């Protein structure tokens, strides 16, 4: 099958959606499919052979922060050329509502289009204003995928229509087979995420730390992720600061080893999560998980059966649960076991097969994807008899 995948975010900036697309593309290539990924990228960044650059993304203020987006005449022309040259059986667009490559592809393509909705942001003002335009573009999507039941619900409420739920994929064995690092073992709590992004919840964990250390003084908190380390420990009494170790940005291998080593993985995120891939990675590595009870997290953790949940932003509850779990090796072993079994459904072998089922379902009754002008849907010019053949 010839598969075209559209990535809305810069390939050179690491992020969940980019990793998802990279793993998905490589999974399909291993199965022998032809895959081409269209992604924004600087012209001088080295790209894997299956990625086609759509030009440099431009930073513009959008939706309350600065987003790097691709739009305008040149990008549209590149999208059209990619569609025309690719002769794809199916095009898979990620994040089609972001005003970037995804939306441009929706405009330009005709034929089987699959779209994955990753975030579950409430509808923005811009989206309400552009609703009619957006709706016309989204109508072309034959199959919608939401990454969680929660993301599906927001999608149904804000845009109407329906979607199938297929979770994000993880290479479970990569994490399950990583070698633990003795430096990171022994009464350790792990946290991975941007330090200076409050929604990742490090401040909640920092507030809980004095209470955890009062009960178990030998505990260490290991933090992997970039951000200002001084600022992160500011709220902590000076004598406790030595119990926090910052590892900075870690490689994929180190992340797996990190998750294999820690005695407890804590995800205190306060919001803005639509899936929670890190929890799946932690469970794959066999780390007992303690997470805030966000909708998305509760779903990934099977409503608390595969990992423990605490009330969002409640650092006392977090501290109590952490102390209890650290002092109860049997409960942790139980969580490890349940997590490892539960996580199989998120393995690429399952997730990839499901996504392929979606492709095959939508291509069953139709022809291949074409750039709209040369497809069978008549363009404006064709409708007035002006099309040139």
């Amino acid at each position, binding site marked *: 099958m010839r598969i075209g995948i559209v990535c809305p975010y810069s390939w050179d900036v690491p992020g969940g959606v980019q990793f998802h697309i990279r793993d998905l593309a490589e999974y399909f290539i291993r199965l022998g499919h032809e895959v081409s990924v269209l992604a924004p990228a600087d012209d001088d960044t080295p790209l894997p052979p299956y990625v086609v650059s759509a030009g440099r993304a431009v930073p513009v203020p959008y939706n309350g922060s600065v987003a790097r987006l691709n739009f305008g005449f040149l990008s549209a022309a590149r999208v059209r050329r990619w569609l025309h040259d690719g002769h794809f059986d199916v095009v898979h667009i990620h994040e089609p509502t972001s005003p970037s490559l995804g939306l441009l592809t929706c405009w330009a393509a005709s034929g089987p289009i699959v779209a994955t909705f990753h975030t579950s942001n409430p509808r923005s003002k811009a989206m309400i204003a552009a609703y009619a335009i957006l709706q016309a573009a989204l109508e072309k999507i034959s199959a919608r995928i939401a990454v969680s039941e929660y993301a599906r619900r927001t999608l149904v409420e804000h845009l109407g229509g329906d979607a199938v739920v297929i979770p994000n994929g993880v290479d479970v064995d990569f994490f399950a087979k990583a070698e633990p690092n003795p430096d990171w073992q022994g009464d350790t709590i792990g946290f991975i995420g941007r330090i200076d992004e409050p929604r990742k919840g490090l401040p909640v964990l920092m507030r809980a730390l004095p209470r955890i250390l009062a009960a178990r003084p030998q505990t260490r908190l290991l933090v992997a992720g970039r951000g200002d380390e001084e600022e992160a420990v500011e709220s902590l009494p000076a004598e406790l600061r030595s119990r926090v170790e910052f590892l900075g940005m870690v490689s994929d291998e180190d992340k797996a080893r990190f998750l294999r080593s820690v005695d407890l993985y804590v995800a205190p995120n306060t919001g803005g999560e639509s899936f929670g891939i890190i929890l799946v990675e932690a469970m794959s590595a066999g780390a007992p998980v303690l997470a805030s009870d966000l909708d998305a997290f509760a779903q990934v953790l099977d409503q608390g059966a595969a990992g423990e949940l605490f009330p969002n932003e409640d650092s006392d509850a977090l501290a109590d649960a952490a102390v209890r779990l650290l002092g109860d090796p049997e409960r942790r072993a139980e969580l490890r076991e349940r997590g490892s079994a539960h996580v199989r459904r998120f393995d690429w072998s399952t997730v990839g097969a499901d996504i392929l089922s979606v492709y095959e*379902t939508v291509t069953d009754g139709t022809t291949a994807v074409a750039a709209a002008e040369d497809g069978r849907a008549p363009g404006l010019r064709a409708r007035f008899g002006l099309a040139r053949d």
Partner: protein
Amino acid sequence: MTATLIWIFVALVAIGLYLSWTAGRLDRLHTRIDAARAALDAQLLRRASVAQELATSGVLDPAASIVLYEAAHAARQAEEEQREVAESELSQALRAVFAEHAQVEVVREVPGGEAATHELTEAVRRVPMARRFHNDAVGAARRLREHRKVRWFRLAGHAPVPSSFEMDDEPPAALADRTG
């Protein structure tokens, strides 16, 4: 005077273009529904065929074979109006037969059983998918058709109002389990 006429002309052309664009949108949606319906039909047929094959293979006990054969046969032969009911009954029959993991294991062990189980698992997973995509397209078309501009200018032409396909498509527990 001429200026007013020109403006009226420009406005009329703009409205015409807009209506033509909307008609194109509607046309595209109807094409999408046709494709989705064809895909759904294919999946339903595939499911009924695999079920019927299993029922006649002699792998299942006689009672289960009869129940499954009846339901699969009825689903394949059903008239358009009874289709939703017949397909729902096939779902129920499949759930009744494959309620236990043990039953799936029995089928797996016979020669060719692995392939048959795989086909059935695929089929019961794809039917809900195809149905959701179909109903999503139908919903989008209906929302657009309810719009004033579409009704007043009869942009939908003679195309019948599309209807969604409602059925019970819950897969059997033993086949839907993804932890294995």
